C-alpha cells in the first residue's frame, strides 16, 4: 500500500508539472528565455541520464555521447526533411539520395537505433578497455564520426559540411518533456530491474560480479548500446530544438558539458542528473546573462569589471564551489523524492525543537 501511495504521488507530481507547463505556455510568449531553457534542459536531462547509466551505474567511463547524439540528430533530420524542400536543402548535391520522409516519432526512434547499432559495433573492440583508456577511445570515436559526417563524398546523404534545415521542430514545450520523460522513465525501470542490479555490481567490483555469474562482456555491451540509444533520441530532440544542425556543432566540448551535468548532479543519481541539467542550462544561458552587461550600476557605482564574457568567469567559479563543497555532486547517489524532502525538513524541525526544549529545561 505504501508503494502504491508513492506511485500515485509521483504520477500526480508529473501531471502537475505538465499542467503547469501547459498553463505557462498559454500566458507567456513562446519566445521567452524560460522556454528555451526548459526545452534544452529537458533534452540535456535525457542525455545526462543516459550518460549516467553508463558512467554512474555501470562504471564505464565513456566520452562518446556527442558522437551518438550526432548520429541521432542526423538520422532524424535526414529522414524528416519534407520531400519538397529537399532540393533547396541539398542544393549542392542535387537534392540528396533520400527522397522520402517519415513521421517525427518514428524518425526519433530511428535515430536511437542508428546510434545503438554504431555503439554495438564500436563496443565490440572498445569495451575491453578500462577507465581512462575507454574514455579516450570513445572520445576518439566521436571525433571520427564528426569528421566523417562532414566529408564531401557523403554529401548526398549528410549534405557535407552544410546545414541541414527545414525539418519539423517543436510545436510545444511539452513535446521534449514528454519524450524525455518517457525515455528517462524507461531508464529508471531498467536500473531498478535485475539488469540494473547487475550493472551496479559490475561498477562495484568486476571480479566479484563475474564470479557471481554476470557475463561482463555481454552486460557492458548492453549498457553501452542502451545508453547510446537514448543519446541518439536526445540528439534527434536537440535537432528539433536547434531547428538547423551541422556536424561541427557536436564537438567534444558538448560531451564535457554533459559530463559536467552528470558530475554536478551526482554520479549514480537519475534525479541528480535532471536537476543538474536544468540548473546548468539556466545558469549558462539565462540567469547569469546580466553579468555580461557592461553598463551595470549599483546606485552611482559603476561595476566596471562587468563586460561581455564575465558570466563565464562567475559560472566557472560556481562550478568549482559546487565541486568543492558537494564532493559527490548535489544529490550524491541518492534520489530526489517527496518522502526524502519531508524527512529532511522533519529532521531540521526536530533538531530545532530539541534545542529549544533543552534550553527551556535549564
Amino acid at each position, binding site marked *: 500500500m505504501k508503494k502504491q501511495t508513492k506511485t500515485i504521488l509521483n504520477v500526480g507530481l508529473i501531471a502537475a508539472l505538465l499542467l503547469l507547463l501547459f498553463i505557462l505556455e498559454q500566458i507567456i510568449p513562446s519566445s521567452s528565455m524560460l522556454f528555451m531553457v526548459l526545452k534544452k534542459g529537458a533534452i540535456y536531462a535525457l542525455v545526462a541520464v543516459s550518460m549516467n547509466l553508463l558512467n554512474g551505474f555501470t562504471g564505464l567511463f565513456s566520452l562518446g555521447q556527442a558522437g551518438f547524439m550526432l548520429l541521432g540528430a542526423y538520422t532524424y533530420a535526414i529522414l524528416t526533411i519534407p520531400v519538397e524542400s529537399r532540393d533547396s536543402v541539398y542544393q549542392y548535391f542535387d537534392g540528396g539520395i533520400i527522397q522520402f520522409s517519415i513521421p517525427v516519432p518514428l524518425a526519433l526512434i530511428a535515430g536511437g537505433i542508428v546510434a545503438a547499432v554504431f555503439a554495438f559495433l564500436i563496443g565490440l573492440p572498445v569495451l575491453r578497455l578500462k577507465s581512462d583508456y575507454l574514455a579516450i577511445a570513445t572520445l576518439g570515436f566521436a571525433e571520427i564520426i564528426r569528421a566523417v559526417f562532414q566529408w564531401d563524398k557523403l554529401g548526398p546523404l549528410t549534405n557535407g559540411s552544410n546545414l541541414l534545415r527545414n525539418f519539423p521542430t517543436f510545436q510545444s514545450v511539452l513535446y521534449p518533456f514528454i519524450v524525455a520523460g518517457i525515455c528517462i522513465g524507461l531508464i529508471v525501470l*531498467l536500473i531498478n530491474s535485475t539488469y540494473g542490479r547487475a550493472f551496479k555490481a559490475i561498477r562495484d*567490483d568486476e571480479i566479484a560480479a563475474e564470479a557471481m555469474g554476470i557475463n561482463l562482456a555481454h552486460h557492458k555491451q548492453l549498457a553501452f548500446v*542502451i545508453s547510446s540509444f537514448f543519446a541518439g533520441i536526445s540528439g534527434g530532440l536537440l535537432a528539433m530544438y536547434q531547428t538547423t544542425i551541422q556536424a561541427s556543432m557536436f564537438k567534444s566540448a558538448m560531451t564535457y558539458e554533459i559530463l559536467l551535468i552528470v558530475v554536478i548532479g551526482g554520479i549514480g543519481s537519475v534525479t541528480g542528473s535532471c536537476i543538474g541539467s536544468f540548473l546548468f542550462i539556466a545558469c549558462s544561458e539565462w540567469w547569469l546573462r546580466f553579468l555580461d552587461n557592461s553598463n551595470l550600476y549599483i546606485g552611482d557605482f559603476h561595476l566596471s569589471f562587468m563586460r561581455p564574457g564575465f558570466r563565464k568567469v562567475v559560472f566557472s567559479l560556481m562550478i568549482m564551489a559546487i565541486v568543492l563543497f558537494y564532493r559527490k555532486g548535489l544529490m550524491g547517489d541518492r534520489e530526489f523524492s517527496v518522502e526524502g524532502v519531508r524527512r529532511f525538513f522533519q529532521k531540521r524541525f526536530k533538531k530545532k525543537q530539541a534545542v529549544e526544549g533543552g534550553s527551556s529545561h535549564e
Partner: protein
Amino acid sequence: MSKENVLKVENVTMQFGGVIAVDNLNLEVNKGEIISLIGPNGAGKTTAFNVITGVYAPTNGAVYYKGKKIIENHPQGKMKKLYRGENPVMYTGHKALAPTPDKITALGIARTFQNIRLFKSQTVFENILIAKHLRRTSNVFTATFRLNAKEEARMREEAEELLKIVDLTDVRDELATSLPYGKQRHLEIARALATQPELLLLDEPAAGMNPQETLELTEFIGRIRDEFGLTIFMIEHHMDLVMEISDRIYVLDFGKSIAEGNSEEIRSNPRVIEAYLGGAQDE
C-alpha cells in the same frame, strides 16, 4: 555414500613468465566431501582456485567437473619455449578450453574471495539478490517492462530465505561493508550460495577471525553442506578448523602437491611437518 566425482584437476601447471605457481597439480573432490587445501604462504593455493574458477587459463592441464572436461590448455605461443613444467606435449592437439568465470559459475561452481569482495554500495539484501541474476529467464526487455514479476518475486523470496539461513535478516538493509568482518564473511558465502552451486570453493573463510568466530564458522560450513547438498573445497590456514571438518586434506608446497590424506595422516606425514608444521616446531 557412493564416490561420485565432482571436481578433478589433472596435471594442471600454471606458469607466469618464468615462475611456476602451480606445478603439475592433481586432485579429486567427490560429492558431499569437505576437502581442504593447505600449504605455506605463496604455495599456489589461490592460484589453483583461480584456475578452477576460470580467472586464469592454466598453462597446461585439464579440469573436469562432474566428469565433463571444462578447462583445458597446453603451452602455446611464447609459453611453448618458456614452459618448464611437466607433460609438455600431453595435451597438445586438443583444442584449448578457457571459459570465463561467469560460465564456470553457471555450471555450478561458486566461490568466495580471500580478501572479501562484496558489492560496496549495495545493501546486504541486494548483494544476495544480485547473485540471483545468474539463474534468470528474463531478458532485458521483459525485465525493464516488468513482465518477469513472478520471477522477480521468487528471486526476492529466495534471497530472504538465504538471509535467514546466514542469520543476517536484522541487518538486511544496511550497507554490506558496514557489517563486522565475520558477518561479511557469512554474507559472502550466502551470496555464493545464491547462485545455486553444487561445489563451493571457499578461499580462507576464517581469515582474520577470532577462535569463537572460527568455531561458529566450522559449524556453519558443516550445516550448509548438509542443507544444500554441497561439496566444499576450501583453502584455510586455521588448523583446528581444517582438522575438524575436512574429510581429506591436500598439502601444497611451492606449487607441488606434497601430501594427501585425512587429518590423521596429514598430521603425521613427515614431509608436511618439514614443509609446513615443522617451522612451528623449530621455534
